């Protein structure tokens, strides 16, 4: 029991406090910029710190689920020490393929949802494999190829929709999901819209992610290869194979990123109106912020979603809403710094406590 209390206190002192400090610092930094630019600081802080209404809460949960999915796609690659900046392109392709498939209604009823998820994952995976195979066979940096593939994905999706979709207003879109395949959301507040049904995907992926990395042999191999390619090689792990598999998993998760929105509200796909871009990059930042852990990623995704949603109020107080992107960027930086400081403080305290415990005796080695 006291063990539990100790772990909770440790978590509060070394994880939660530094995070809160980092967030406060990021808000203050943004406030300073708002002030320098001559806009009303008071209004900015008031808008950002106000309590979100029911409607906004729902939006925050919905957005957070997509950001978290994207962050998990990035995080699994980070653990393998590869930088999958291509999540953006992978989820565009996943979304596009999934939308075409769902709209076609080949599979009837609720099964269509499951089948679409599979299609989206496979498409995201296939797109990720391009960068992975280039890396493994030709030594092309996965960062460079993925950046280019992001542009190609966007163009390709646009082209496909224009060619095979139908015109709706000013944009082209894919066919709409048949009503029988549209899942019901979670009605949490009676006056507000539902939380998207497929936001549950974020929870499922989180559980799978933690389990895979922490408890399976495969996860161990992945972390080993991420820490040291040479040690991996000498101990029966093929780093190239691990790159391929990790990228495949990452791409599959990326394929899911937009699915909550697709099934929850959009029901069709078309750039730019019926799609939300940029989640891939947000995911990278959130993975960093969350230090590649499930809990951290959920926290980071919620924070980012919160900041974006709150920023909608900024217009009314005369501040550009893009200013929250500064807050988001600074938060990531600050968290990195705050955790480094807290790590040092922790090490120092531990050393002091060792010194106290052993102070009188001079038995050093087996403390």
């Amino acid at each position, binding site marked *: 029991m006291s063990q539990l209390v100790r772990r909770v206190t440790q978590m509060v002192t070394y994880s939660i406090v530094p995070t809160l400090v980092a967030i406060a610092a990021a808000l203050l930094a943004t406030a300073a910029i708002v002030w320098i630019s001559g806009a009303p600081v008071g209004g900015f802080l008031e808008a950002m710190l106000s309590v979100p209404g029911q409607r906004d809460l729902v939006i925050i949960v919905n957005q957070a689920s997509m950001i978290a999915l994207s962050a998990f796609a990035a995080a699994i690659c980070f653990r393998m020490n590869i930088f999958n900046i291509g999540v953006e392109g992978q989820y565009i392709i996943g979304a596009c393929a999934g939308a075409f498939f769902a709209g076609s209604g080949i599979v009837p009823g609720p099964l269509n949802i499951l089948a679409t998820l599979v299609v989206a994952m496979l498409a995201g995976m296939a797109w990720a494999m391009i960068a992975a195979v280039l890396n493994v066979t030709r030594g092309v940096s996965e960062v460079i190829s993925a950046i280019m593939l992001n542009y190609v994905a966007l163009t390709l999706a646009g082209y496909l929709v224009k060619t095979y979709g139908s015109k709706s207003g000013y944009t082209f879109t894919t066919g709409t999901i048949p009503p029988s395949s549209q899942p019901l959301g979670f009605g949490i507040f009676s006056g507000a819209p539902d939380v998207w049904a497929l936001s549950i995907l974020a929870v499922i992926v989180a559980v799978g992610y933690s389990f895979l990395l922490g408890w399976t*042999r495969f996860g161990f191999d992945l972390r080993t290869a991420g820490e040291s390619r040479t040690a991996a090689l000498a101990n029966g792990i093929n780093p190239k194979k691990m790159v391929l598999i990790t990228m495949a998993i990452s791409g599959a998760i990326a394929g899911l990123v937009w699915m909550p929105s697709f099934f929850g509200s959009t029901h069709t796909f078309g750039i730019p109106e019926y799609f939300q871009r940029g989640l891939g990059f947000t995911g990278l930042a959130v993975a960093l912020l969350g230090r590649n852990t499930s809990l951290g990623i959920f926290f980071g995704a919620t924070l980012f979603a919160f900041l974006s949603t709150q920023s909608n109020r900024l217009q009314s107080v005369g501040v550009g809403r893009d200013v929250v992107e500064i807050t988001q960027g600074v938060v990531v930086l600050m968290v990195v710094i705050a955790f480094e400081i807290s790590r040092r403080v922790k090490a120092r305290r531990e050393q002091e406590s060792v010194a106290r415990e052993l102070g009188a005796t001079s*038995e050093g*080695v087996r403390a």
Partner: protein
Amino acid sequence: MQVELRGIAKRFPGVIANHDVDLTIRAGAVHALIGENGAGKSTLMKILYGVQGADDGTIVVDGRERHFSSPTDAIEAGIGMVFQHFMLADNLTVLENIVLGAEKMHGIGEKARGRVREISAEFGFDIDPDVRVAELGVAARQRVEILKVLYRGARLIILDEPTAVLVPQEVEVLFANLRELVASGCSVLFISHKLDEVLQIADDITVMRRGTTVGTADPATATRQQLAELMVGAELPSPELSADTVTDTPVLSLRSISLVDDTGRTLLADLDLTIHRGEIVGIAGVEGNGQTELVEVIMGMRRATEGSIVLAEEDITRLSVRKVRERGVGFIPEDRHRHGVVLDFSLWENRILGHQTTAPAVRGPLLSPGGARRDAERIIDAYDVRTPSVHTTARALSGGNQQKFIVGREMSGDPILLLASHPTRGVDVGAQAAIWDHIRRARQEGLGVLLISADLDELIGLSDRLEVILRGHFTAQLDPREVTAQELGTAMTGGAA
């Protein structure tokens, strides 16, 4: 230059690495620091070089108290260090490696080249500034590291286990270099677990135990036995084989193994070798003559260009590392940091490494943290690994203790074959005896061992049979019961045995 350390203390989580350390390094002397694994030697040197800050105590250089917050400060004060793991960039030339970060001293051009030549000549280093480091052997790289600190004006040179990677002839050369250095007024502080060498080269000896300096010895009068007792309070071990346990059942047979690299260079040439159950076969050779490649080929880390490998009647020539390990091959790699451990994993996670498919570390496709922890604890006990717990990261262990853990891990699960590269590199005399005992006991139960070592006493004392390897060829077969270290050394460098 005289350097004094007074009352130095350093604490890590769960460990007091140094306390009340007092040490005086005289000008123009070779000062040896000895002590068992985890005694705190490397930590002390890192403090002196400014890599780590001391929690307590003072450093006095030529009567002036100094504070080093980084190696730059230490170099400023004339103190330089060569780490056990060299820090040279392979793709750069010697000159480039040396001037890197010291461009202000003599630029990067002719003047710098001249200065490097000058130092090299002065101390008999025999180093060409324009050759690429990748082309140099271990001993030459070490000289480059020493040159590097001398170039920066070091007057005290710290060497952490410099002889662990050298064969006897190279040790002689190094010692001659060190003699030149002290003759010119420099001081040398060096760590070694090889007591003969310590007695041979040192002017002063300080012994550390459990984090503190416990005494000094006079190399003129002290014996190895006395030093060993001061260090660990134990008898000196001798690597002598007990009864002959060699059977005629082969565990490993190599048939005409050849390896040619991408550039067409022959690394292994038509090697035939059989190791039987209960047999230890020693491979003697100067580092870089194909030992590394031989082991990598057997392990499946590299594919042989020609030939076949048979392990207990099964052809394993084309098997992956994992499959080879699953067939019961233990592997003690020569470079523990690159291949033996993941430094930032805890010890229990490192217990799993290399054994990801065998109990008790895993259960089916899942890890078994409980099993791994218990077995890591068993290793810690059986091999006397000094660590606060199984949750400590490998990085926090002293070099010798990392090595002991790796040996313990590779001996678990009753392997049928052990590929041991320098199994006791960096471990103290007490632990060395313990490791030898473990290997002998396993041999009695039928373990076959391929032993590679730079320590000729270990090779002669432990092996049932010796093969000499030179430029990828087996050039001689020797009987360890008859050969002397001298003869073996000659055979290794290509002279007549």
